[in-house]
């Protein structure tokens, strides 16, 4: 028996005998003439609950966490979600009979109580591929999350995961560049890339801003980054920023002999403005541009196509996602957003640090990273991954770890996040007591020392502090970084964790 075999923890809930029976009910679908009699009919009788349905390889499957209002039958609630996210409305309509309605109805085929969460249910819903437009996240999301989240019979609803069939994956461009080509273009192999977000976020003039970029890149970082809300404000027009940043990038490149980049944020009020900014970034020779998640799915897909046409790496800052990803009972899980963004075609996506200042428990974060980077994701309930997902050679997306991390955590970061990741030390670079260059050097030396040790087969996680201390003997900036941030950790309880935990299995 595989060691990681999972036995879902048994629900300790208030589940009643009655509920238990309902879980196992067969189809209640009313067929023929009776089905179309005018009036209101329960969703589970209209064909949206089909426990015998076996999803087709080409179906899109969505897993929802459903919290019905008190007294609402969970099967009916799940069927309602299936109905309202596909063909149904609140009453029977005869015009269904002009269509191949049975094909177009989403079918809830499985409802499980959520382990250790009384009143919550996982509903598996299958959607026929013909319900969706090729290559459109806007259409996919409008269908799946467009209508159901405010539905009155539900207290809360969360889209936990989706299985995207190969037939649908293949209609998307995918990441404009991908990890492999990004590494080839940047000429950087075998280690995480290093970045930093320019701080302070707001108020620097273009010239001062470029200074920070130059110092950080010259000191040893591969990338610097605009923050999500750096667009074009009174203190710094976007053209000023782009011009000074590219002076900094080129100067640092010549000083080090390495390819460097700075994520120029082209986020703006209109597509026309974004294209204008992206064109200017290209004209100046930037290798990378950046957008914010808040520009919307269609704008993201447009920029991904632009990036592919113009040999540009596309960085996505997930600005705003926590408004709907963070709470466990309601919203959309970030693993779904990550899947959509891989389809949409961004190259970089912020996906959590585990150890830093922002939300993210290790197992859930691992699930996000796998979704970004692997060609095939097997079910891993302990990481919150509910479906096998075949990416069909769609490019890999580089996850970015940013927010409250520093050189002293290098061994933990490498252990949690692996090698194909961008580690962004903003404060951890710019806040260095000896200056920005020293901060960058400290991070780079810590990283290289850790990779060297890992490749030599050392137990780098356990020996991490020792490895760093040794590297600091010949690197004063690292020594000073370790001293300044030695006790900084962010240990808070996560608001979102997997519902399944690995249970040691009996040897067979």
């Amino acid at each position, binding site marked *: 028996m595989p060691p990681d075999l999972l036995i879902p923890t048994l629900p300790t809930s208030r589940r009643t005998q009655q509920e238990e029976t309902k879980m196992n009910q067969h189809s209640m679908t009313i067929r023929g003439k009776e089905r179309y009699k005018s009036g209101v009919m329960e969703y589970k009788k209209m064909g949206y609950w089909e426990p015998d349905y076996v999803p087709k390889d080409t179906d899109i499957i969505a897993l929802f966490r459903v919290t019905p209002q008190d007294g609402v039958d969970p099967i009916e609630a799940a069927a309602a979600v299936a109905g309202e996210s596909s063909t149904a409305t609140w009453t029977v309509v005869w015009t269904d009979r002009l269509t191949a309605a049975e094909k177009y109805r989403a079918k809830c085929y499985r409802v499980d109580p959520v382990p250790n969460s009384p009143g919550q249910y996982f509903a598996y819903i299958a959607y026929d591929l013909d319900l969706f437009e090729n290559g459109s996240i806007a259409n996919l999301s409008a269908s799946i999350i467009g209508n159901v989240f405010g539905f009155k019979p539900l207290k809360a609803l969360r889209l936990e995961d989706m299985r995207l069939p190969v037939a649908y994956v293949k209609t998307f461009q995918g990441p404009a560049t991908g990890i*492999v080509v990004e*590494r*080839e273009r940047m*000429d950087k*192999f*075998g*280690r995480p890339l290093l970045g930093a977000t320019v701080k302070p976020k707001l108020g620097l003039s273009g010239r001062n801003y470029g200074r920070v970029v130059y110092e950080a890149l010259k000191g*040893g970082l591969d990338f610097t980054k605009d923050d999500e809300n750096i667009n074009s404000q009174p203190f710094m027009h976007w*053209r000023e920023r782009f*011009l000074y940043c*590219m*002076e900094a990038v*080129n*100067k640092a*490149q*010549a*000083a*080090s*002999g*390495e*390819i460097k980049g700075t994520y120029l944020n082209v986020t703006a009020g209109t597509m026309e403005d974004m294209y204008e900014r992206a064109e200017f970034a290209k*004209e*100046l*020779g930037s290798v990378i541009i950046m957008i914010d998640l808040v520009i919307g799915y269609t704008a993201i897909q447009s920029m991904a196509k632009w990036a592919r046409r113009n040999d540009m790496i596309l960085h996505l800052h997930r600005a705003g996602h926590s408004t709907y990803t963070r709470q466990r009972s309601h919203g959309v899980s970030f693993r779904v957003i990550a899947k959509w963004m891989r389809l949409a075609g961004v190259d970089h996506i912020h996906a959590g640090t585990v150890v830093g200042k922002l939300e993210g428990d290790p197992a859930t974060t691992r699930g996000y990273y796998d979704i970004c980077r692997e*060609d095939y994701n097997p079910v891993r309930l302990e990481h919150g991954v509910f479906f096998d997902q075949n990416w069909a*050679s769609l490019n*890999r997306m580089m996850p970015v770890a940013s927010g409250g991390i520093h050189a002293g955590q290098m061994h933990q970061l490498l252990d949690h996040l692996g090698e194909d990741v961008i580690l962004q030390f903003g404060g951890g670079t710019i806040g260095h007591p000896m200056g920005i260059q020293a901060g960058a*050097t400290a991070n*780079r*030396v810590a990283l*290289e*020392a850790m*990779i*060297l040790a890992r*490749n*030599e*087969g050392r137990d780098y996680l356990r020996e991490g502090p020792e490895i760093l201390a040794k*590297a600091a003997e*010949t690197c004063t900036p690292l020594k000073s970084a370790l001293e300044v941030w030695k006790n900084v950790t962010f240990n808070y309880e996560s608001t979102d964790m997997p519902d399944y935990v690995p249970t040691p299995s009996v040897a067979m």
Partner: protein
Amino acid sequence: MRVTQGCFSFLPDLTDEQISRQVQYCLEKGWAVNIEFTDDPHPRNSFWEMWGLPMFDLRDAAGVMMELDQCRKVYGNSYIRLSAFDNSHGWESVRLSFIVNRPKDEPGFRLERHEMAGRNIRYTTKSYAVDRPEGGRYG
């Protein structure tokens, strides 16, 4: 200056023993190690000269170290790097690359600025070394 391309350029130069351990790591991953050299380390110079073919089917790092010795004898005052190539599906690219030899003096690069329309500047990075013809650089 010090060219900081490759995975370990910010550390003190690796000893042969350290290099050998990195090579062994690559071989155990099933990657083929390749020795390359150049006298033009321009950051966009992707194709360094190959010292023979990538060493496929090798088990022991000693084989690479012997070749590296030979390469150093001929190109000891050039840049030499080791690259490990992974042919597995979906990668089919370099997985680790690091410099193992440098010229005694690294002259670095000149940044040329051409002022264009508006405030736009067109930048060109030039290796000082290429002021001399190939083969005659670094004395």
